[in-house]
């Protein structure tokens, strides 16, 4: 009940960023902008993103603790932690596996839904144990699909009281009908050990936010999702 209360939307058309992240927080500011094919803004919302998930803290823990595994030639215990991927499987992850770490990689290209900012239709409030969007919107132009653009990033910057950087992605609707986006999140890529201590790529959801009431993206229009990670002093 408490969680539901906390998830009441804080939708503000023109909220100053500084009010959305309180002193002492490293928080998320979620900007949603819908534009028509001529670039005119048809809807814009700014809200306090609330939902760093379990996987975010687990991956940060792995980075800070410096867990490292090299390969089968190491005679001792392989120091890994188990983190749930977007398919619900616990994957053994370390800050570096063989020569590759790549933790927190969100630099997805066009059409890649495995990582980067993702969009969905689910409306269930976030839970810290969420490991995927409730109802992922796929890439494409078919029914219920949106075109995933390439991720872009804004450089870190600061003023006397805050510092921030941004992650941005466009979602274009060419499906022929309006699509309502109710949830957005951030997936990241990392390397995980697999059989015989080889490794492969795994994907983890680190952020999930539900947009109260959803945001409609009419056919032919584009939704730009801007996640701003901001720290305030």
């Amino acid at each position, binding site marked *: 009940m408490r969680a539901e209360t906390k998830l009441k939307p804080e939708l503000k058309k023109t909220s100053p960023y500084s009010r959305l992240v309180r002193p002492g927080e490293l928080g998320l500011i979620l900007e949603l902008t819908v534009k028509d094919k001529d670039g005119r803004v048809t809807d814009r919302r700014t809200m306090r993103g*609330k939902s760093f*998930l379990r996987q975010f*803290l687990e991956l940060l823990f792995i980075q*800070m603790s410096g867990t*490292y595994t090299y390969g089968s030639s190491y005679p001792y215990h392989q120091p890994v932690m188990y983190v749930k991927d977007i398919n619900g499987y616990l994957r053994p992850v370390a800050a570096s596996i063989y020569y590759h770490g790549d933790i*927190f990689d969100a630099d997805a290209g066009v059409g890649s839904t495995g990582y980067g900012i993702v969009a969905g239709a689910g409306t269930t409030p976030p839970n810290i144990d969420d490991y995927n969007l409730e109802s992922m919107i796929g890439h494409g132009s078919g029914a219920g699909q949106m075109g995933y653009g390439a991720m872009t990033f804004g450089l*870190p910057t600061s003023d006397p009281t805050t510092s921030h950087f941004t992650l941005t992605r466009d979602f274009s609707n060419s499906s022929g009908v309006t699509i309502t986006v109710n949830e957005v999140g951030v997936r990241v890529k990392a390397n995980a050990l697999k059989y015989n201590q080889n490794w492969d790529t795994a994907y983890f959801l680190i952020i999930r936010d539900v947009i109260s009431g959803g945001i409609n993206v009419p056919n032919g229009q584009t939704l730009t999702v801007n996640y701003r990670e901001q*720290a305030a*002093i």
Partner: protein
Amino acid sequence: MLKADIILEKFNDKGRRLQRRRQRSRSWTRNFLGMLYVAHAHLAGGEPYSQPDIYGNGRQMDIEERGVPVIVASPGGLSVVTSLTDYDEDANISGDLVGIQVGEGTTPAAPADHAMESRIPHSEHVPETADRRGECYLTQVTPGEREFYGNSWYALEFQPVWPHELWMVKLKFYREGLPGTVTVSIRSSLTGADLATETFDGDLLTTDPAGEWKDINFTTKVQLSAWATCYVVMRATGGNSTNSIHVICDEDEVYEGGRNHYSTNGGGSWNYHSGSSYAYCCLFEEFGRNLDKGIIYGGCEVYGLSFTHPNGEFRIRRNFHNASGASCTINEVGIYAFGTHTSEQGWAYLIARDIVSPAVAVADGEILRVTYVPQITV
């Protein structure tokens, strides 16, 4: 939201807890966001991002090999932290520069802070209260001497291998005639300013060519850094060729920490002799006190990951043992993280800094435990 609490606990030397306090951390820095940015944007070796390290130098980071290590866990004291930066290449850093830090600074934290304002260093050293001999050269392979008077000056170069305040220099002299006042000064460069100066009456020195040891006690104590070249400059400006000072030397060049220098124009320019039977390195001893003090940095632990919806947290913890012989006051705490670049280099970055209010006084023998508790709440 990611937040953090800071827990400050103080224990006596028997492990009994004397104090426990919890306050909200307010100060994730821009550098922390910079490290997350490099990770999210997946900046590879050819496209590094630069941000200031703890010494204020712009340093590049990338995701090569370890994917932007924000390493905070570290062993205690000066033990090394290692991270791979490329195939079979690694970067190393002293453990005390990674993890939780303490300091005496009181200026409020700002997003662009790149270091503790006044970090208390890791040190097990107790400030010395008596003089200890540092560099010396007492060998005379081939006995010799050098004479100085008027504009003919003489200087000894030496290089201490431990940091200390210079309290006294011993030199061996005799006089010829009545040379008058002798001036001995300390310089960091031959033509630089005197950092400390003492004089004595040269007319009271022995005339025995075997010489006598003279203690030069400096009122101003010059702080010498390890391996920083230092000069002892001698002159008797009122003297002349028949009223001069002779300093006892070794004509061979055995001392590896420096050499002799001479000037014929009152210190305006300098030359030196070198080579066997021509070196004239003077006999000397120097004494001083290492007044370094700090606090002993224990290992920095990262542990205690736990979740109960809607909350999750883990802990970063380090003990600081004050064995300095005196009390110290902790006004600021922070976290240094180790980040690397593919060029086989790595640096420490300040990722959090907080003012401790009120300050915590840690008496000699006491242990301060600082725990950061990063938390998320959905």
